[in-house]
C-alpha cells in the first residue's frame, strides 16, 4: 500500500486556499487604488475636465471639511433616520397587510389585480403627490414606505401561501385556532421569506429616501447631491455619492448579519 501523508496534503490544501483568498483581497484593493489613481491623474493632467469629474483629493478635502463643520453628521443623520424609520414602517405595514390577506383569502382574491398593478407601478412617480399631500419633510417618509411596502406584502403573502399544507393539517388535527396556526406555524415557517424581504427592502428604502430628498428635502444626502448638481460643485456630489455607497453597504451588511443571527437562534428552515 502506498503511504499517503494526509496531514501534509491537508496543510498544503489549506495553504493554497489561504493564498487564493489573499490574492482575491489584494486584487480588490488594487482595483480600487487603480481607479482612484487613474481618476486623480486624469483630472490633474486635464485628460478630462476636472470641473465635470472632480477628483479624489477634492472629495477627500470636502469630506474633511464636512466632518469639521459637522454638516456631514447633519445630512447623514437625516438620511439615516428617514431610511430606518421608513424601513421599519414599511416592513411592519407590509407584514400587517400580508397577515390580513392570509386571514381573509377572499379579500386577497379581490385585491390581487390591484396589488399586481401597484407592485408594477414605479413608486417614484408618486413623489409629487406625496410632496403635495404630506409636505416637504414627511413626503420623504411617504416615498420610503411606498417603495417597500407593496413588495413586502406580495413577498410575504406568497411566502405564507407556500407553508407546507400538511404542517397546517397537523395543527388542525389538534384543534388549533386560526390565530394559533398563524403564530405557531405560518409566521415561523415564513421567517426566511421575511429575512429575504428585509434584504430587498433596505436597498429599496434607501432609493425611496434619496428620491424623496431629490424632490423636496432641505437636508440629507439626496438633498446634497441635487444641491451640488445645481450649483455645479461636483466634489460635493461625488462626496455624497461615496458616503451613500458606504452607508448602503453597511446597512446591507447589518441586515445580512441580523439574518444570520436570527436564523441560528431560531433554527430556521432554509428558504424554499
Amino acid at each position, binding site marked *: 500500500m502506498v503511504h499517503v501523508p494526509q496531514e501534509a496534503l491537508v496543510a498544503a490544501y489549506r495553504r493554497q486556499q489561504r493564498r487564493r483568498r489573499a490574492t482575491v483581497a489584494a486584487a480588490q484593493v488594487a482595483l480600487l487604488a487603480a481607479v482612484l489613481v487613474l481618476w486623480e491623474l486624469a483630472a490633474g493632467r486635464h485628460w478630462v475636465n476636472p470641473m465635470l469629474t472632480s477628483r479624489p483629493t477634492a472629495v477627500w478635502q470636502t469630506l474633511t471639511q464636512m466632518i469639521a463643520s459637522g454638516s456631514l453628521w447633519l445630512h447623514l443623520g437625516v438620511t439615516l433616520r428617514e431610511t430606518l424609520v421608513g424601513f421599519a414602517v414599511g416592513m411592519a405595514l407590509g407584514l400587517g397587510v400580508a397577515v390580513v390577506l392570509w386571514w381573509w383569502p377572499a379579500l386577497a382574491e379581490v385585491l390581487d389585480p390591484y396589488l399586481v398593478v401597484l407592485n408594477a407601478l414605479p413608486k417614484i412617480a408618486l413623489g409629487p403627490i406625496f410632496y403635495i399631500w404630506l409636505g416637504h419633510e414627511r413626503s420623504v417618509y411617504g416615498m420610503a414606505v411606498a417603495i417597500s411596502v407593496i413588495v413586502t406584502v406580495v413577498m410575504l403573502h406568497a411566502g405564507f401561501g407556500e407553508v407546507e399544507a*400538511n404542517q397546517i393539517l397537523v395543527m*388542525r*388535527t*389538534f*384543534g388549533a385556532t386560526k390565530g394559533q396556526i398563524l403564530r*405557531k406555524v405560518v409566521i*415561523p*415557517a415564513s421567517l426566511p421569506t421575511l429575512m429575504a424581504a428585509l434584504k430587498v427592502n433596505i436597498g429599496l428604502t434607501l432609493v425611496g429616501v434619496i428620491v424623496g430628498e431629490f424632490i423636496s428635502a432641505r437636508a440629507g444626502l439626496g438633498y446634497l447631491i441635487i444641491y451640488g448638481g445645481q450649483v455645479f460643485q461636483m466634489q460635493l456630489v461625488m462626496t455624497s455619492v461615496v458616503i451613500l455607497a458606504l452607508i448602503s453597504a453597511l446597512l446591507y451588511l447589518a441586515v445580512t448579519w441580523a439574518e444570520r443571527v436570527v436564523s441560528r437562534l431560531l433554527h430556521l428552515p432554509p428558504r424554499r
Partner: protein
Amino acid sequence: MSRPRIALEEVWLTYLTPRGAVPALAGVNLEVYPGEFVSIVGPSGSGKSTILSLIAGILAPTAGRVLLDGEPVTGPSQRVGYMLQRDYLFEWRTVQENCLIGPEVQGQDLGRARERVTRLLAKTGLSAFADAYPDQLSGGMRQRAALVRTLAIDPDILLLDEPFSALDFQTKLMLADEMWSLLRAERKTALLVTHDISEAISMSDRVMVLSQRPGRVKSVHEITFAGPERPLPFKARSAPEYSGYFQRIWAELDQPGR
C-alpha cells in the same frame, strides 16, 4: 361487547369540485371497540383517508353519522390523535418542543404534558434527541417523534394514515413492532389505514376491506393467531395463519385493471 368507541353509520361523503360531484364514500358502516386495533385496506382512491378525516372532525359527512362513544363528532377532539404519512415536524422546534405542540394548542397542563413526552421519548428511544432539531434525525426517528407528538395529548383513539409508507422496509418492520406494543401497553384504540395487506394483517384484530371508489366496506376479517398471546407484528408475518388471511384479503381487493 361494549359500546363502540368509533362508529360510522351509513356515512356518505361527496367532494364538490368545479367539474362536478365526486363521491368518495357511499354508505360506510364500521365499528371499532375500545382497545381494538382495526385496519382499513383498499385500492387507492377508495376513500380510506377520508374516513380518518371524518373521525378526526376535519371533514363533515355529506350524510350519515360519525360517533365517538355514541356522541356525534362536531370538530377536532382532544380524544383523537391523528398520525399522517409523513412526520411534518416543525424544523424550527426541537423534538421535545414539536411533541408539545398538541398540549400547547389545546391549553393542557404543560408540566404534565412534558412528563408524558419525556416518558414517551424514552420508550421510543429518543431521549438523547429531545433537544435535537428534526434535521438531525433519521426518517425512522422522525416518524417516532411524530408518534410521540400524536400521543402527547393522551388520546384514547389513534388514527394512523399509512404511517410507515415513507420509511424503508427494515425501519418499517421495526417501527410497526414498536408502535404496536406501545399502543397495546397504553390501551389505545387504533384505526390504521394502509394499502399494505401484510401490515394490516400483522397488526390488527380486524381488517376491513374497502371497495373501489366510491368506498363501501366490502368485508371484515377477524384476525386471530393460535397461542396464548398475540404475536408481535413481525412474528405474525411468519405465523401459519398468516398466508390464509393474505390470500383471502388479496382476493377481496379490487385489483386495478381486473
